[in-house]
């Protein structure tokens, strides 16, 4: 868990994209982005069709993840490099899946698709087909995933980090402003959660800020690094970005992503909700 083991640069990808054991995987919110152009050799995972259970609100289970990666030609000992649009939101979300199901060597391309495009690096629409494998997923590591009961118990006890935009935190918006407003029944945030938008962890070009800047960001916003931390957003993808920062870049232990996030919490009966720009009371 360090910047060196979890993050690669665009230059690293250029140097290693033809290595037999390096698998580039693009994961986007806009699932058509890959088809219009992707990094040479990269395969695609669809965050919804591939990574979500088609019936229940949950993500794919161990067996489904195993079958998915086997069909896409990923081996257990491959170095998986994830990247995507939206400042790597969904790539970070997929990174969290790979960790949850115990993949050994998984990394994120710093800056993702945006930095790559802004650098005018090459994209291709070549069809990539990898030979099927027999991937074995491990039992899910629930040390990095939080469920609603644990979140309720964490109010006023653990660090709760709300990584949505300030207007979503305060209850003035229900979703990111590039999406139609919909989803949760109620707006606001989980009481005592600190508002630390995911975007503060990244530069305009999508690359991550330095470790020193990141440490100061969370400490100044009230995160106690001696306590356990749960991050959440609207559906768990932006908070996977912050989970990546805290757990992988800064090496914090006991950081969980609450992927139920606001679409679950804001629709639950009987849970506390805080409105406005202040964290509120436990």
């Amino acid at each position, binding site marked *: 868990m360090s910047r060196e083991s979890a993050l690669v640069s665009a230059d690293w990808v250029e140097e290693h994209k033809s290595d037999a054991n390096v698998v580039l995987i693009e994961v986007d919110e*806009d699932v058509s*982005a890959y088809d*219009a152009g992707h990094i040479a050799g990269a395969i695609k995972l669809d965050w919804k069709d591939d990574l979500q259970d088609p019936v229940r609100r949950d993500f794919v289970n161990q067996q489904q993840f195993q079958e998915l990666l086997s069909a896409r030609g990923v081996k257990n000992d491959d170095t998986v490099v994830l990247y995507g*649009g*939206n*400042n790597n939101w969904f790539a970070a979300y997929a990174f969290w899946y790979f960790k949850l199901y115990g993949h050994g060597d998984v990394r994120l391309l710093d800056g993702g698709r*945006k930095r790559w*495009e*802004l*650098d*005018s690096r090459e994209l291709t629409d070549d069809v990539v087909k990898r030979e099927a494998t027999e991937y074995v997923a491990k039992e899910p590591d629930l040390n990095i995933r939080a469920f609603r009961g644990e979140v309720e118990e964490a109010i006023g006890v653990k660090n709760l980090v709300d990584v949505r*935009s*300030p*207007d979503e935190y305060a209850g*003035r*918006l229900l979703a*990111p*402003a*590039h*999406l*139609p*407003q919909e989803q949760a029944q109620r707006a606001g945030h989980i009481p005592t959660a600190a508002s630390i*938008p995911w*975007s*503060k962890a990244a530069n*305009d*070009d999508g690359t991550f800020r330095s470790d020193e800047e990141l440490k100061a960001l969370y400490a100044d916003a009230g995160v106690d690094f001696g306590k356990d931390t749960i991050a959440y957003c609207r559906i768990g993808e932006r908070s996977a970005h912050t989970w990546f920062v805290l757990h992988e870049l800064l090496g914090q232990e006991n950081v969980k992503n609450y992927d139920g996030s606001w679409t679950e919490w804001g629709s639950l009966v009987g849970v506390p909700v805080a409105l406005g720009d202040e964290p509120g009371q436990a």
Partner: protein
Amino acid sequence: MCGAKQGGLDLKGVDIDKEAVIQGQVLRGEEPVGGAYVRLLDASGEFTAEVPTSATGHFRFFAKPGEWTLRTLAPKADPVDRQVVAQYGAVAEVAVTV
């Protein structure tokens, strides 16, 4: 700036009485710039959302009424900031030149 202009994005299916829409096109000279990134910053300068432009250089945000800044990043160009006011009932249409 306000009011959908001819040639702008199709508003079919968008209820502009309920959505404070900001949309527009990124241009380099007369040419649309696809694959640019438009960031929506709130009145305090805080990041709120970001979209890549379409092949025709278009982008759209569903904001809330108020003052916003659009920051546009494009290959081989310096970032460009544009101020915009969003409101219900009218589309804020913005042309950004990089």
